[in-house]
């Protein structure tokens, strides 16, 4: 007597589990240009680092003697792995089995993914493709239905994971219902051109709303890259994996640890000449804020998140002399960089991420104020904008502000955390409102009554603009320093070294 037969069955089941939904189903999936969940897991992790949990979960079929004849694995694959040498949890639906709509063991494993990430306090990565609950196969088998009343809420594990560890997810095909909710229940999410994200798919929509719409029209990348459902849009799955790996490289393993620093940069005191001329003297002319930031931050270190959502502001992660930081700034190509409702939500999300994972914040300010006009009012700009301002005002991580141009309105307050180190460029303009709008309101009658209203308006605007420069404020110590723009990087690197020791005090006790 030995356990040989049992050992053989274990091996057989594992082999069948690796076949997922079967060769034909996998082939159909590959023909669509998509990877299987196991290929995805291998793609996002360091090579050979995957250690599966629950490989034997699934439905076994046996003949009369109890010999294994077939095995349908749980359609959710999960396990430990490493990204950049650091431990993490990874999981994803198997689309080749029931279209990823969770079978019993699959659902259990998907919930356990989050539990495991919280238990081991390591980042959680989800690679999504699949639908939500299905009525197929549900029948009156048993009189005991539903989950016990004492079952914890289904999404409790999602909420706990978000509070404890970095969570990054990808949509890699159609993602609907429960997986869609998990996708956005993340600190960072990415979708490929081939994916769609929906509350419910076309058949459900047609039945309820009598509208024929495709998956792409409901939740394709053109819809969701702009509305903030996902942060980033990428061309293919490989790029999605690279973005998730990159995102995690700036973050600690959990809220109890500090972000990982890269070694000091060898160009710490770089003073790019371009910074002296990058802001045009003509105030109506635009310039490239991403280029400006590139001259200041560690080379190639800026990782942008949410480029198409609220494009008037730019948000992302970067490094300053090796120290990971959150960064946001204004993009004057979009309504002069004014803060729309969407941009405000994006900024709020970034500040919260930095606060949660102990990343100092650096802002480059060219803020004309909240977006104005009827569309902006309809979008509840003042509500979302005020939220951004309040989150910034309450922020407790170290903060540095570089004022490069405009600093107007309530919105400008979103660019300064308490105790912010404030550096100002000579091109700065600051005040309650920009000169043009301010003059139009305060001197409307005087302008209308003037012999040459246009000339009077220009005169008043110029007079007001002259008062909005930074020199008098610098002399009044209303900022830390008025600087030569070329000095920005060395000044911020000095600051990053000063604040780094403070970060350990920011950890939750």
């Amino acid at each position: 007597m030995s356990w040989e037969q049992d050992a053989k069955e274990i091996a057989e089941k594992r082999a069948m589990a690796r076949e997922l939904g079967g060769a034909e189903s996998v082939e159909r999936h590959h023909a669509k240009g998509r990877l299987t969940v196991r290929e995805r897991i291998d793609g996002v992790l360091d090579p050979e680092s995957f250690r599966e949990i629950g490989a034997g979960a699934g439905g076994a079929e046996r003949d009369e003697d109890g010999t294994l004849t077939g095995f349908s694995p749980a359609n959710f694959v999960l396990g430990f792995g490493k990204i950049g040498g650091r431990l993490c949890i990874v999981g994803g639906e198997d689309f080749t089995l029931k279209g990823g709509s969770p079978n019993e063991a699959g659902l259990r494993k998907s919930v356990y993914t989050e539990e495991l990430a919280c238990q081991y306090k390591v980042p959680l990565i989800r690679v999504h493709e699949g639908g939500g609950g299905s009525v197929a196969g549900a029948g009156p088998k048993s009189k005991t239905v539903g989950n016990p009343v004492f079952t914890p809420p289904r999404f409790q594990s999602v909420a706990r994971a978000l509070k404890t560890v970095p969570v990054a997810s990808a949509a890699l095909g159609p993602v609907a219902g429960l997986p869609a909710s998990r996708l956005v229940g993340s600190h960072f999410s990415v979708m490929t051109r081939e994916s769609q994200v929906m509350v419910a798919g076309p058949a459900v929509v047609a039945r309820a709303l009598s509208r024929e719409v495709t998956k792409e029209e409901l939740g394709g990348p053109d819809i969701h890259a702009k509305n903030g459902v996902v942060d980033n849009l990428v061309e293919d799955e490989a790029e999605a994996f690279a973005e998730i790996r990159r995102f995690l490289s700036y973050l600690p393993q959990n809220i109890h640890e500090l972000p990982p620093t890269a070694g000091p940069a060898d160009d710490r005191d770089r003073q790019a000449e371009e910074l002296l001329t990058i802001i045009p003297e003509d105030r109506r002319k635009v310039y490239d804020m991403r280029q400006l930031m590139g001259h200041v931050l560690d080379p190639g270190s800026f990782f942008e998140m949410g480029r198409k959502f609220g494009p008037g502001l730019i948000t992302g992660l970067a490094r300053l002399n090796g120290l990971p930081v959150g960064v946001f700034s204004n993009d004057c190509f979009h309504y002069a960089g004014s803060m729309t409702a969407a941009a405000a939500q994006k900024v709020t999300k970034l500040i919260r991420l930095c606060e949660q994972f102990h990343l100092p914040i650096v802002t480059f300010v060219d803020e004309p104020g909240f977006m104005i006009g009827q569309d902006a009012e309809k979008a509840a700009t003042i509500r979302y904008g005020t939220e951004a301002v309040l989150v910034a005002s309450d922020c407790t991580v170290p903060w540095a502000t570089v004022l490069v141009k405009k600093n107007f309105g309530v919105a400008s307050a979103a660019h300064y955390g308490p105790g912010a180190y404030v550096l100002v460029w000579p091109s700065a303009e600051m005040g309650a409102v920009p000169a043009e709008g301010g003059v139009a309101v305060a001197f409307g009658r005087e302008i209308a009554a003037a012999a040459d209203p246009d000339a009077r308006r220009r005169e008043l605007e110029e007079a007001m603009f002259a008062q909005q420069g930074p020199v008098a404020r610098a002399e009044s110590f209303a900022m830390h320093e008025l600087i030569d723009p070329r000095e920005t990087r060395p000044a911020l690197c000095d600051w990053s070294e000063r604040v780094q020791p403070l970060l350990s005090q920011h950890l939750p006790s």
Partner: protein
Amino acid sequence: MADKIVRSPVTGTVWKIEMAAGDAVAEGAVIMILESMKMEIPIAAPDAGTLKELSVAEGDQIEEDQPLAIISA
């Protein structure tokens, strides 16, 4: 010959048109300049090709996403 519609990133007015229909355009060449929120926003060609059509004129008020020009690559 694929046509590419160039759309406005902003609501505003057409301040200055820098090219005429039929002109050859290089990628990144400025087709027109819009004015929005007191800033001049250059509209650059997304691809090289021929400027097939200008869909707006100087002084026109334009909405976000409105077609401004068509380039055939």
